[in-house]
């Protein structure tokens, strides 16, 4: 991220912030979308996160930490969206089918459905760890920093989440195996 742009935005330059937001918006939205699994919620969370970034930007001391810092604000916005939505709707909606685009063919349609269900069963705490570590490739220590929790907690959440996703994938495999056995 451009340190000059960040510096100008820290001093209230809206034009500089607009350039920053254009650059960061897609990246933040991608993360929000993967955590929340809902288009509307992801857009709302990204919007709130960008406003929080503008508001708190003077407090960021090192422009080099802008990305990690912005993820922290985004994850907070995701929590807020889920908490707000829970008051009105019983469940978060699944992603529409037409938004799935196979990236490299590794995941089959069945895998994707199973993963989607397994992921929906995870709490936002667990989803955030999975997305930050496996989508953004952040080391666990940095995930802990972004989320503001101890590294041990991150490790435990990741373990729990991956165990849940593995169980979701294997749940699909079990009936097929039984059919063969019969």
């Amino acid at each position, binding site marked *: 991220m451009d340190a000059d742009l960040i510096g100008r935005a820290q001093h209230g330059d*809206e034009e500089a*912030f*607009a350039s920053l*937001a*254009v650059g960061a*918006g*897609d*990246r*933040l*939205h*991608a993360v929000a*979308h*993967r955590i929340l699994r809902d288009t509307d919620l992801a*857009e709302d969370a*990204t*919007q709130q996160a*960008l*406003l*929080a970034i*503008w*508001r*708190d930007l*003077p*407090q*960021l*001391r*090192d422009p*080099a*930490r802008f990305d990690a*810092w912005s993820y*922290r*604000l985004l994850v*907070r916005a995701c929590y807020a969206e889920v908490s707000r939505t829970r008051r009105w709707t019983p469940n978060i909606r699944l992603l529409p089918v037409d*938004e*799935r*685009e196979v*990236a*490299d063919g*590794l*995941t089959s349609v069945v*895998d*994707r459905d199973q*993963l989607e269900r397994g992921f929906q069963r995870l709490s936002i705490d667990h989803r955030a760890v*999975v*997305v930050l570590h*496996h*989508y953004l490739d952040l080391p666990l220590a940095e995930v*802990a*920093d972004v989320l*503001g*929790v*101890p*590294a041990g*907690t*991150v490790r435990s959440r990741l373990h729990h989440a*991956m165990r849940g*996703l*593995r169980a979701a994938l*294997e749940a699909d*495999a079990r009936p097929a195996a039984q059919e063969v056995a019969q």
Partner: protein
Amino acid sequence: MSTDRDVTRIVRSWLEEGRTALPDRVLDTVLDQLPATRQRRAWWPARRFGEMNTAARFLSAVAAVAAVAIIGALALPRAGGGPGASPTPVPTPSPSPVAVPLGNLAAGTTYFWDDPCCVGGKRISFTMSATGWFTFDPIFLGKGTRNPDRFDLYISPHLVANVYTGGCRWLGTALDPPVGPTVDDLATALLAQAGPGSSPPIAVTVGGHPGKKVELSIPQDVDVTKCDSDGSFAIFGRWLGAGQSYGAAPWTYGNGQHNTVYIIDVDGTRQVIDSMYLPGTSTADRAELDQIVASIRFESRPASPSPSL
């Protein structure tokens, strides 16, 4: 059955799928709201004394000399100047507190802190009893007694949201769940951080309000320059400020730094006053810190004038 590596590969591949682009209308909404969204100012000093350029140092030194001259000139008539007169004029508090300015502070003047970053329900006033104190940020008063390029002692107000347990390695060690809201919650958490053998919190009264005092020292064998960084400076992290999304406090100035943390219950709001001195600071200089703390008062904010209709 899938191996863990298979599951990781499948999950990573699945996460790569899906949309990433933020619709323009969302971005437009954000940009429309910027003029009405006030930015929050950082609480920390924008830079350390050591980073000032030569011209700034010169101007600062000139300002310091001017301040001393003015204070001296004002103090002389009160001192009387005759035989037997007290060589150290006792500062007379100014009639009404003034906001802490950037730059040098004048002995005998009563100032107040009232920045929402670090001051709770009531503003904090205090009277400076000595010269040589200055600020880069109004909520952060310091004094360099041996080296003008750095503070040897300072005092600053804080509102604390959480406590780190890692000290020098504070990243990722914030308490989960966060520290509770009371004076005792924070005193206990800080004491636990201080480690075995540390002195227990002492009951104190500051400005007529009850609280606890906790003494914290960075072990002499810890090289603070190698502590986790907040992105700009290495910090021996003890707490996270209220409203802060990242970083650690208090400000770290050197190996063996000693902080006296006053945790005060101001009518239900937990207010922290942090004072610091480095090893080797004289007793007289440390006494100046104590004098500032002793002069602290918590005051209701003056009523704002009614808007004219």
